[in-house]
């Protein structure tokens, strides 16, 4: 186990280096001159020059890369170019809001999609099953934007069940007042495709010999489904959750924009509009690291879920 962990961590190093190089050179070569972005339109040549010196832009490329790596390792990204807020502080204050919205979405998505998927997989080929396929295809062809625009209008503005948008400093108020509508709309969009995905996992398992054996033994259908099929379908389900997990840290930027939730996603979008490169770079690099660790954790979770899995 320890050997496996060490090898996996060791394998992350080249990928991580690649991410750092990609982000560094993407902004270095194509991002325009940071000094001009920072100085604004009215900056004098002297000012531009002093900004260049301050950022180390006159140094050779390898030294700038070294500075960049140092920033990543020490978690010291300095300040946002646009707002002068320290980037560490930016992460610390925006992440809670993002998680407040995204964690309920992820949990509800999994908890609701699995039983529905199991039901439609069990009733394969029935009207429910076919209806789901058709609904998914049509529902997916409509942009997420439309759901949010219409949902906000109908439930927030016309019916007045929820506030149209807003946020507070209190977690309980946020969860009870501001979170329900975004979570509801996000689930409305994601539930059908997720169900369809889980359905295919269950279908794969339902055709297996052990299901027939279990039924032949005289087990009840509930036992067959929940004890045998669900347990065996855990691996693809875990893989899928592992894929969704990094997303909760970026948040759905669309939801954050629409509902004025002060989260990471909205911050990144603002940074893109303001050419605030350090913020984008920091989020990209750390999210990549996080994604790699989540992948590793998913692989470890396989072992817990299924003792037959051998990690090597």
């Amino acid at each position, binding site marked *: 186990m320890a050997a496996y962990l060490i090898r996996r961590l060791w394998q992350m190093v*080249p*990928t*991580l280096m*690649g*991410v750092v190089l*990609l*982000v560094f050179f*993407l*902004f270095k070569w*194509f*991002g*325009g001159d940071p000094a001009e972005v920072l100085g604004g339109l009215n900056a004098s040549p002297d000012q531009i020059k002093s900004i260049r010196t301050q950022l180390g832009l006159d140094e050779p490329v390898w030294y700038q890369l070294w500075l960049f790596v140092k920033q990543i390792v020490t978690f010291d990204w300095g300040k946002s170019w646009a707002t002068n807020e320290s980037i560490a502080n930016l992460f610390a204050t925006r992440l809670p809001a993002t998680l407040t919205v995204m964690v309920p979405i992820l949990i509800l998505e999994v908890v609701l999609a699995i039983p529905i998927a199991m039901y439609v997989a069990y009733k394969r080929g029935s009207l429910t099953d076919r209806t789901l396929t058709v609904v998914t*295809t*049509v529902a*997916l*062809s*409509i*942009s*997420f*934007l*439309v759901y949010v*625009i*219409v949902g906000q*209008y109908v439930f927030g*503005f016309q019916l007045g069940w929820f506030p149209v948008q807003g946020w507070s400093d209190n977690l309980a108020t946020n969860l009870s007042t501001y979170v329900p509508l975004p979570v509801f709309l996000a689930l409305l969009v994601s539930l059908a495709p997720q169900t*369809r*995905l889980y*359905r*295919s996992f269950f279908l794969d398992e339902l055709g297996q010999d052990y299901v027939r054996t279990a039924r032949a033994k005289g087990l009840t259908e509930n036992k067959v489904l929940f004890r045998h099929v669900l347990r065996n379908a855990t691996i693809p389900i875990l893989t899928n959750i592992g894929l969704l997990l*990094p*997303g909760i840290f*970026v948040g759905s*930027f*669309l939801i954050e*924009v629409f509902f004025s939730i002060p989260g990471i996603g909205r911050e*990144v*979008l603002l*940074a*893109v*509009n303001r*050419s605030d*490169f350090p913020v*984008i*770079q920091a*989020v*990209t690099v750390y*999210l*990549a690291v996080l*994604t*790699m660790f989540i992948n590793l954790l998913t692989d470890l979770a396989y072992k817990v879920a299924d003792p037959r899995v051998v990690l090597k």
Partner: protein
Amino acid sequence: MNTAANITTQSADGAAGSELQKSEGVWAAAWRRFNSDKVGLGSAIVVIAFLVLIVLAAFGLVAKNWQAEIGVPNAPPSFMGPAAKQATGAIDAPQGPNVDLSAVDPLAPRYAEWEERAKQFQTTEVPKAETLPLGGDRLGRDVLAKAIKGTEISVFVGLAAAIAATLIGTMLGAFGGFFGGKISDFLEWVYNVFESIPNILLIFAFAAVVGRGVGSVVIILALTGWTGMYRQVRAEFIKHRSREYVRSAEAIGASSFSRMFKHILPNVSHVVLVRMSLLTVGFIKAEVILSYLGLGVRVDQVSWGTMLAEAQSELILGHWWQLAAATLFMAVFVTAFSLMADALRDALDPKLRGLE
């Protein structure tokens, strides 16, 4: 369709001796299967109709004047009839002739002169339509024309980005899969780097440096969306590179390039085609979102995304038609395209039928 021609001639050569043994080519068989799929065929017709509309719009034959303000602001759709006149609450205009003020009006002596000068300039008052077929937007532009023009831009971006991503993914996948070794290791490394960054962040990072406009969106989507294609093409090339037909091509002295692109590629092109059609759908949706956020097309262009962005504020005032038009065009096209892609996959890759 060069590849299709290749394969048909090959099979014709093979069966030169006896007509009876002539076997069906890959594309002929696919076409037969596609033809029997009513849903696929119907959706293909819808897609083709849209493509014709797009070509017409691109050459300026329809929706050329989408920017002309031909209706009253927020003109309702024709079937709803003109909007009810709103009570302006102004004082009624006084009846009878104007009171003669020329004795005290200091400007009175110059009125005649100004009237003379005003005659030199013609202002033509174009009558604005009270209703438009699918309504008008905030400026009184025809929503139908905008939707057609928006379809042109959105679909063009989706298709162009899908073609570009396909080119990148196929080239890299072919090299990685065919040669293996150091090239493959390097490309796998690049792939892992791109995969480790969440897609939306990658798109944002590229959007931050590339800038705005149709070309930029195509570049951003292509550079961030090639990875799936690469992976699949690579797997296919690994599978095919040691097959007999490739080895016999090598034996008769075919170069690596010729084996890769003349022998293997036509045999895996169905995989590429299916993956490309799936990419198109994804890219169209991505373009809509980017344009909505202002990271997409320029302000003097229209796409489904910019229409939705305008529609959001119109909806609050009860003007739902622009939202409905953009949604309807997008839903019909994307549904038809997805169904066509599914049918294409079933026709070209019968093994995959029934799997999602």
